[in-house]
């Protein structure tokens, strides 16, 4: 294989994150912190999911640890993790120069667009649990998918107007590509001798065992039921944000159940539609509260 030649020192994982935060802060994004709950993707963060609805302009960026129990591989697979990081940007309304801004951001983390092959390859995004869909691309850098780029059309079954654009950088993939490593655990995390594997290898292994072997189907289904119930109760009490927390909880319980491989196709569909139901109710509550806020 051809050797990779870098002119600048190779950025560490954390310096990639820092550079992205600085880049997007300079472009007017509010830098949020990760949401403190287990979620499957950065889209669940209320800073994206709720704020992408309604007419107010909004721009934010944040790192979000994401959990996909089914992708666990006991730390044995060089590319798959059940816990990983997304760097998420949301711009509402989507600016005309969204693609150019994104490309500029890559220069800041060591990907010179004139030295690489960057491609916007069709990828329509749909999340049945969130009742959401959008059109966009996966961005390829030399054949590696490094970012999801999506113009939200609907969330919680509600039309997005104006339309937001969501950029989701897969931080591990980006770091592997930039650092030229073949195994995610070999990523240089801090530029001073700490590797990704040192921090996460053991937890990957343990969470895989826990998710695939220990997690208890009965307990999880009960947790799901409880979260769903709680969500409706809180919504009736007019407590939107606590209610939305329960959506994330329910969604994660469903993901854990899915990882146990015990759900039949119709059961799976039924769980998805139940999560969609509470997410939708929260989105509607968010929009109606917006109107009250405006009147106040």
């Amino acid at each position, binding site marked *: *294989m*051809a*050797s*990779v*030649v870098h002119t600048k020192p190779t950025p560490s994982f954390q310096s990639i994150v820092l550079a992205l935060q600085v880049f997007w802060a300079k472009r007017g994004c509010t830098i949020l912190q990760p949401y403190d709950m287990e979620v499957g993707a950065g889209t669940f963060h209320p800073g994206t999911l709720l704020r992408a609805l309604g007419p107010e302009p909004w721009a934010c960026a944040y790192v979000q640890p994401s959990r996909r129990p089914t992708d666990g591989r006991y730390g044995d697979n*060089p*590319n798959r993790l059940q816990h990983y990081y997304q760097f998420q940007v949301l711009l509402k*309304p*989507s*600016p*005309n120069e*969204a*693609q150019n801004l994104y490309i500029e951001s890559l220069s800041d983390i060591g990907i010179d*667009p*004139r*030295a*690489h*092959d*960057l*491609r*916007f*390859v*069709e990828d*329509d995004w749909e999340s049945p649990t969130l009742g959401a869909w*959008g*059109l966009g*691309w996966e961005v390829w*850098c*030399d*054949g*590696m998918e490094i970012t999801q780029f999506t*113009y939200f*059309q609907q969330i919680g079954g509600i039309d997005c*107007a*104006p*339309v937001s*654009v969501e950029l989701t950088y897969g931080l591990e993939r980006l770091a592997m*590509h930039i650092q*030229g490593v*073949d195994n995610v655990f070999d990523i240089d995390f801090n530029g001073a001798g700490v590797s990704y594997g040192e921090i996460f290898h053991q937890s990957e292994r343990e969470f895989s065992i826990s998710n695939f072997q220990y997690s208890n189907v009965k307990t999880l289904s009960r947790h799901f039921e409880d979260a769903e119930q709680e969500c409706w109760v809180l919504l009736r009490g007019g407590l939107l944000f606590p209610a939305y927390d329960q959506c994330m909880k329910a969604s994660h319980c469903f993901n854990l159940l899915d990882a146990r491989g015990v759900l*039949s*196709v*119709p059961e799976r569909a039924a769980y998805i539609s139940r999560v969609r139901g509470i997410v939708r109710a929260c989105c509607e509550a968010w929009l109606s509260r917006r109107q009250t806020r405006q009147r106040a």
Partner: protein
Amino acid sequence: MPEFILEILSEEIPSCSQKRAADDLKRLVCSGLALSGLIVADHALTFVTPRRIVLVIADLPMFSPSMRKERRGPHVNASLSAIEGFFKANGITRAQAEIRQTPKGAFYFALMDQKGSMTATLLKQVVESTLADFPWSRSMRWGSTHESWIRPIRRILCLFEERTVPVQFAGVKASNVSEGHRFLAPVAFPVRAFRFYEESLRNAYVILDPAERVKRIREQAEGIAAAEGLTVISDDSLFAEIAGLVEWPVTLLGKIEKNFLNIPKEVIMTVMRVHQKALALLEADDTLAPNFLVVSNTETADNGQLIIAGNERVLQARLADAKLFWEQDSCQPLRHWGNKLTECIFHARLGTLADKVGRMRKLAAVVAECMPAAPLPLVDQAVLLAKADLATGMVGEFPELQGIMGRYYAWRDGAVQEVYNAIAEHYRPLGQSDSCPSAPVSVCVALADRIDTLIGFWILDEKPTGSKDPFALRRAVLTGMRLIIENGLRVPLFVIFRKAASLYRSAGVFDVRSLLRFFTDRLKAHLQEKGVRHDIIAAVLESGEDDDLVRLSSRVDALAHFIETQDGMNLLIAHRRAMSIVRREENKNRLASYREPVDVTLLGESAERALESQLVTVTKSCNDAVKAERFDDALRTLSQLRAPIDTFFECVKINSDNSRLKENRLRLLSHVGTVMGTVADFAKIKG
């Protein structure tokens, strides 16, 4: 004459939508202009790249022609208010209106001269309405726009006679400016004429014509391959897809590690195609080479070294995954994976894949009875293994390898050739253009699979309707029909359908005819493509009684041939004459039916008697011929009726005053129709 250029520059358009978008743009703009009398389709050209859809029309006149338009109004006897309303709506007086006789009576007509208008003005209207109503299968909004397009529009170039046509859409105002390649020449430049435009784009690293990009990719790929002593595995659809991903194709050669080459080559090629859109290469001895070609969209200072390294790393990781699947799948015999089908849902209401295989075994046994060349034990083994690979890791990851992996795994387990080939071939033909398997075991499994699926969805009442066919049932019917026709299979479909339905617990009474209708509809389309006349096909297929597609097909062939002969023409005329008389009488007297037997004692005239006796002879030999499926003979026999019919019409007065005589003569004619109807419905044939 002046030239029109339209370029819609947007963010990246999905490769698979590009060609249709360009065609639609041309069609809609040209038909919009045609409404104003500008017939330009012959001078219109379209081009498409990942970021632009372009329409160029040479030789557009400056003005659209004046046209006379006419509008039909109310009937002359319509109410006064309707008539006055019509005059008013069209701005004419009673004197200016014209009264014309039509087959439905006399009507007022308003005639208006429409003055020609400036083409530039027309273009603005036509383009704007085309963009607003563009028939995307899926489109999107962006920013604060209400309009939609396939991806956000960034620029519109719209020029007529070197001047900007001030089109406006989705917040974008048209200009005379375009821009080049996203990375290599991201600068705007003004445009005057198409030949300069194309040239400027080329200088700005954009090849406008997709066909030229395909050609370039092919030449680059073949050049690189030849230099390495290799050949490119040609894949036209992949070339076309890649051409839709790049504006400036630059093909690069990468390596893969040799130790991956012991995975089946279909797997390697699929990994390359699915994940990287990469092209595979062959060594001189036709084995897969440890290389791949990737088509990048850019030129770099290091001649693509970084790009190659990146692609190699990604492919390496994907192949490592595939290799792991191959090794894990190989730990167990294919049978073992087959046992896991109890956990795979075929359809929520139709059970698991294991249930499906169970039904297919019983159904295939019945189909095999009609196929002496398909030995039952082999058919049964093949069915048992046909779906087993769906439970393997490899097919889970790459669904397009279904059947292909099963074939490898069964071969490795020592299955016989008929069996492992059937595992791969039972999915084929994949569609209209794919070739049809002919090995009896494969055909038998393929047919049982499709019929089981069709019956299942028919029982759920999930028949395809209109454009809705989520389970691809029409394709199952089409390919099932091809399996039968192309292999000349004599299968009694009603029997097979009923058997298949009985294997579903909840079947109840199954309407075999509704499913047969779908098969005969496909057969109809198939025969039409072969050039058989529509009416001749209808004359044979429409009764829906015969469930043997091969027999139907040979009957159509015989009839098509016969109807072209002089005998055929004459018989058809005789039939038409006889039937029109019978029908007229039946219509006159609704109670009358002339199906009753002819009363021989009432046949007085010799022409009557001659026709009757010929009818008896012909009926017998025609029935024999039909039974023996000698349809040519049957038709030739029928043509012996023509002479006695003609004589009958010449010599016998049907409208006898004696009503019993008249009825008896009509019965005689009616029976001519009946015997001819045993071969085909001649009434459907146009003369």
